[in-house]
């Protein structure tokens, strides 16, 4: 085997193996502690990324949206084909077109967007209709205590208590950063739950149902908290949004 060294017989030390195992070890530590490290990066580095005039730093995995879907693809629907149905414990079920939705009073909210998997996007501008206004238009009956949301492909569900749903910072959002909400961000319209982790903000919102009690949504059936206040749930300590 002496000739296998490639170094003219000099054997050398197994630095390659040490580096390899060291990198694997770092990766394991990263999986275990990544939640905390990412939080720290979002707090300290994201503001610098935002001010970088070259835009190169924006390639870093900090302060940016990730697109998650629970199905393989993106549900695509044009604004012309879009419908938002409101049903369940209401006086008058609704079937709103996109034009009917946008004819309602506009509300703008600018907040950080925090995902439970660690990433945070600073100062995101949303525009849409207050969820409360949609609920009032249908007329909520007195035995309703909760609101259930379903994406228009039927794959994703979410829920809020009626009290939460009536807050000022709960939107049916259709604009993001001054642009029409794109399909990958949940367009034509999505729920936007400002004070909670991103999974509460049901994308591709197709149906709102008033119910007697909270029914845990897609992620809540898989272990995430139902009351998903940013910084006060899911064992995380992010600053509130």
């Amino acid at each position, binding site marked *: 085997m002496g000739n296998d060294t*490639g170094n003219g017989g000099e054997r*050398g030390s197994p630095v390659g193996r040490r580096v390899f195992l060291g*990198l694997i070890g770092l990766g394991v530590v*990263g*999986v275990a502690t990544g939640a905390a490290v990412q939080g720290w990066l979002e707090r300290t580095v994201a503001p610098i990324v935002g001010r970088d005039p070259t835009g190169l730093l924006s390639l870093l995995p900090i302060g940016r949206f990730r697109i998650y879907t629970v199905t393989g693809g993106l549900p695509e629907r044009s604004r012309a084909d879009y419908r938002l149905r409101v049903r369940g414990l209401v006086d008058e079920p609704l079937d709103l077109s996109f034009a009917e939705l946008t004819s309602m009073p506009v509300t703008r909210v600018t907040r950080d967007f925090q995902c439970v*998997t660690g990433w945070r996007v600073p100062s995101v501008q949303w525009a849409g209709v207050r969820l409360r206004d949609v609920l009032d238009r249908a007329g909520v009956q007195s035995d309703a205590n909760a609101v259930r949301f379903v994406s228009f492909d039927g794959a994703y569900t979410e829920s809020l208590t009626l009290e939460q749903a009536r807050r000022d910072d709960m939107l049916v959002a259709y604009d993001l950063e001054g642009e029409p909400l794109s399909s*990958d961000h949940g367009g034509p319209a999505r729920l936007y739950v400002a004070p909670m982790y991103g999974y509460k903000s049901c994308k591709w919102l197709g149906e709102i149902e008033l119910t007697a009690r909270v029914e845990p949504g897609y992620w809540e059936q898989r272990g995430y908290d139902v009351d998903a206040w940013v910084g006060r749930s899911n064992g995380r300590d992010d600053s509130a949004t």
Partner: protein
Amino acid sequence: MTGASLHPPETEADLERFDRVERTVHWATAALFFTVMFTGAALYAGPISALVGRRELVRTVHVVAGLGLPVPLVVGILGRWGANLRADLGRINRWILDDRVWLRRRTRDRARLGKFNAGQKLNATFLGAAIVLMLGTGIIMKWFEPFPLPWRTGATFVHDWVALGVWIAVIGHVAFAMRDPEALASMQRGRISARWARTKRPRWYEETTGNPAERLKTPR
């Protein structure tokens, strides 16, 4: 290939640098790396996502290529045909003093290298570790249900940052290959001139041919 030392250097036979198995493994791995890198970029960067579309297809390609990424290397290493590949991995593992000398730009010219320089060793080691890390974290991201929920966050974190490292390493690797067309050609055809080996990898030249590398005064 065994020392035809009577001939002048111009007619000295080429040396085999990479055999067919190694070249096949290299290019199959390269094709899979490019596939996961570009589909990964399309999944990750908003503007590219919008440009490419077909997210479902892109994600499927990314996952399938990612699962396939270790296959050429594993088949090459485990097979009876992989003796040269295994020997080269041993060479990449082992560092001699000249590798450290080469790493320092100031003393680089003094290094008498074996078959691989320290940059090649680091690149191969990092990309090898990256294959393992990206496979592990990718599996946690895609099939998260059996794992604790915070692992999903940690796996996302590691997958993102290692991806950035892979992009840097691969761009660097390709740039260095472009600067040495003869070395690049030998990854396509397998053989390389004795002159290249003698001047750039003297220890490997001596070991392969049995001739001393510095018997003639040659420009470095």
